[in-house]
């Protein structure tokens, strides 16, 4: 039975100009109650434990996991950011597997937060997550991180949000955030999916669009065959489709998230319809493209804090690890007097490099433990610079200046180190430092326990002394 209600008042709501995130004013204030509310503002990435409190199956093989922090604090973040989660996929293995997942909930509801995970049956982590993370599961997380997010204040607030497949998760956070805030905004969502029934959040998106005149949502079925009754668009992203859903794309800020191929196409097309590349923000879920950074300063600030915290933690590494709950059965590292990190219950693997001045040891980074370190003095030396970096696996010495980023120099010298973001966010370039001192400017791509275990991110590090590197 459908009851038809005649709608009367069709007037537009009256709104304040532009959008402003609720923490914006609080962060600028140091007085009284506002001071206490600082906890609600995104400030710097932290390491914390979070408990799953709900799981919600979504269309398209996705599952939303609702978490709350174990310490009860709200999770402050910006719509579009992600958390890095340590999943103990191998049960008792010493190293959990880290994965980054965009937050799909709105930071205006900070007491719980959601990540939405698409199950990739061939993947290592996502099937495990779907099968094992349940209410009660406690996981170690780091976040929030990422420069792909809405600005804290925007008096224009005209957005074109492009999502393909699982790329909808950070976009969903943005839509939810804008919907929950007062203020003028103009949001067009264009959401590409593979199957008519596979659009996660489509009910909520439809509802939001129906009650919030600021939000318009368009669906397109990509290049799949179109079932009867499909009312959305069809076909892959084209310039004509962009013109159709947002003829004023040219004047909007564009946030796009999805697989690399989709985003590469989007970049081209957006240029074609006249969107300036400084108005395009992208989150690559795969591939090696670099995330566009608009908020360099803000992120750098966050990184400073993160590093400060990491150092603090590293100084009291023993206390830190002892303070971690062991009851969850995730891992039980032991920190011994020599600074060796060991996984309890497993054979101890120690790399004891003979490089002079070395006081740090670390477990092997997944590869074969070095039986005996070769002698770096027999390596070829390339490049110029005041410091020497010895790459033990590659067998080369590279001269470097203290101002140069280690990853670039290493790449030039032919040392193979994987790298994605090149900005200290993704963690893919992580290597073990056998000796020497570096200065690292990371943005959440590495954890304190990893730093204290001698790892670092060469993409965002410079050398302070001669170095010996396990790569």
């Amino acid at each position, binding site marked *: 039975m459908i009851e038809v209600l005649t709608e009367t008042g069709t007037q537009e709501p009256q709104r304040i100009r532009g959008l402003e995130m609720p923490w914006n004013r609080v962060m600028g204030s140091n007085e009284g109650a506002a001071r206490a509310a600082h906890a609600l503002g995104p400030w710097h990435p932290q390491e914390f434990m979070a408990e799953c409190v709900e799981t919600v199956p979504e269309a398209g093989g996705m599952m939303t996991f609702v978490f709350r922090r174990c310490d009860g604090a709200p999770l402050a973040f910006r719509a579009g950011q992600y958390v890095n989660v340590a999943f103990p996929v191998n049960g008792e293995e010493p190293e959990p597997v880290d994965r980054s997942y965009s937050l799909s909930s709105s930071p205006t509801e900070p007491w719980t937060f959601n990540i939405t995970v698409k199950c990739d049956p061939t993947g290592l982590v996502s099937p495990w997550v779907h099968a094992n993370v349940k209410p009660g599961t406690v996981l170690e997380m780091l976040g929030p991180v990422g420069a792909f997010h809405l600005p804290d204040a925007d008096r224009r607030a005209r957005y074109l949000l492009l999502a393909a497949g699982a790329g909808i998760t950070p976009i969903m956070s943005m839509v939810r955030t804008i919907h929950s805030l007062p203020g003028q905004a*103009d949001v067009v969502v264009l959401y590409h999916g593979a199957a008519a029934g596979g659009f996660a959040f489509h009910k909520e998106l439809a509802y939001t669009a129906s009650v919030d005149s600021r939000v318009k949502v368009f669906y397109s079925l990509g290049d799949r065959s179109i079932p009867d009754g499909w009312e959305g668009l069809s076909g892959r992203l084209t310039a004509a489709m962009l013109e159709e859903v947002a*003829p004023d794309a*040219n*004047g909007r800020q564009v946030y796009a998230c999805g697989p690399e191929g989709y985003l590469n196409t989007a970049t081209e097309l957006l240029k074609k319809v*006249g969107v300036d590349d400084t*108005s395009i923000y992208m989150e690559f879920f795969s591939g090696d493209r670099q995330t566009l950074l608009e908020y360099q300063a803000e992120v750098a600030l966050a990184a400073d804090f993160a590093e400060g915290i990491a150092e603090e933690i590293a100084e009291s590494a023993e206390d830190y690890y002892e303070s971690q709950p062991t009851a969850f059965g995730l891992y039980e590292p032991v920190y011994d007097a020599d600074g060796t990190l060991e996984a309890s219950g497993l054979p101890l693997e120690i790399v004891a490099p003979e490089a002079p001045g070395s006081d740090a040891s670390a477990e092997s980074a997944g590869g074969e433990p070095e039986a005996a370190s070769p002698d770096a003095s027999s390596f070829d030396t390339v490049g110029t610079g005041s410091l020497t970096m010895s790459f033990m696996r590659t067998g080369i010495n590279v001269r470097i200046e203290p101002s140069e980023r280690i990853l670039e120099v290493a790449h030039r010298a032919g040392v193979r180190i994987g790298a994605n973001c090149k900005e200290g966010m993704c963690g893919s370039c992580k290597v073990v430092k056998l000796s020497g001192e570096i200065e690292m400017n990371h943005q959440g791509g590495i954890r304190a326990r990893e730093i204290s275990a001698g790892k670092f991110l060469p993409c965002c590090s410079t050398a302070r002394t001669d170095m010996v590197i396990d790569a």
Partner: protein
Amino acid sequence: MTASVNVPLNSRGKLAATLPAEQLAEITALFEFRRTGHSLDAPFYTDSTIFKIDMEAIFGQHWIFAASTAELPEPGDYVTVDYGPYSLIVLRNDDGGVNILHNVCRHRGARVLTDAAGTTGNLVCGYHSWTYSPEGNLIHASAPGETKFDKGCFGLKRAHGREVAGLIFACIADEPPADFDETAKIFEPYLAPHDLSKTKIAYQQNIIEEGNWKLVMENNRECYHCDGHPELACSLFPTWGLTEGLIPAHLQEVWDRNKEAQSTLEDRCRRYGLPYEVVEQLDTRIAGIRISRESLDGDGESFSPDGHRLSKKLLGDLRDFRLGRCSMHLQPNSWFHFLGDHVVTFGVFPINEHQTLVRTTWLVADDAVEGIDYDPEKLTYTWKQTNLQDKAFVELCQQGAGSPAYEPGPYMKSEYQVEAFINWYVQRVQEHLA
């Protein structure tokens, strides 16, 4: 909007009354026998008496563009505007309105404010410290032993002010022409979407051109000479002022591109509810105006080599950068370009019969960050170059007007706006002398 107080300044036709009858007859004849469709006789550009008449009949009677809101955003902010014998203070008052005051101390006539712009509470004359309120009232004058001194009689002289869509106009006549409000109604809807109240000055340039102010205006009112503006020609279609049938072969391709860009622009304007039609009443009303929104070449966004935006922040509530340029010509002393990303205002302030100050001001959104959203060098490049080229053209003409060999030449079809300007000018002066 400004409340204005009328203080009689001088009686009408004062200058004409003081001129020897013979000289006055000569000058009146010059106006009367002006040859339509031709440039003016030399004395209009060189004669100091005609310059005085211009100051009285045009700059003393009509609404002139003085500044934009961005130049005085806060209460107490002021600019001084000098032209001919006049100096005006344009001051943002505490009520948000604008006061226009003559910058002439009522004690012994010293300039009260000597800076080009600034912020002030009360206005203190530097000579003997007479102190005026922002409204112009004399509030303090140390007067030892004076008994009969009535401060109420010595306020700064006030003139009329109007603020429309972020542009500030001044009129020093006792009774300003009444049709300005109608003109304002024409241009207000074109300008309002650019929201000048939310802009700031990115750059201001003052150049003195060695030429009569009318030559400066004439030069602006045609694009016949636009071949001389290579930088501007990147974005501005050099077919400006031409119509079908007048297009020379070498511009045919440009013309076709122009037409297509124009129709795309008009579609966009209709979508956003922006007016674009040409309104042209340059000499058919007292407050003469031409306004329209026209396409730009390339990306169609701004005055850059490829037509791409020069500031990354959209003005006002505009939704699109590809809005071409809304251009406005006002008689007697201004023209403007309103784009999606910035605004350029041009004010012409005569100094004497052979020198003119041209003030060009580039405005961007007030939240645009220099070095991030815009680069002042790039923002100003095209019009700085164009201004220099125009200055040279004007100066060549001024030199010509000084030669005994000079005689008025015919305006071409594409120079119809020059004719309209001159026709407007001649009519206004004749009305004044009558």
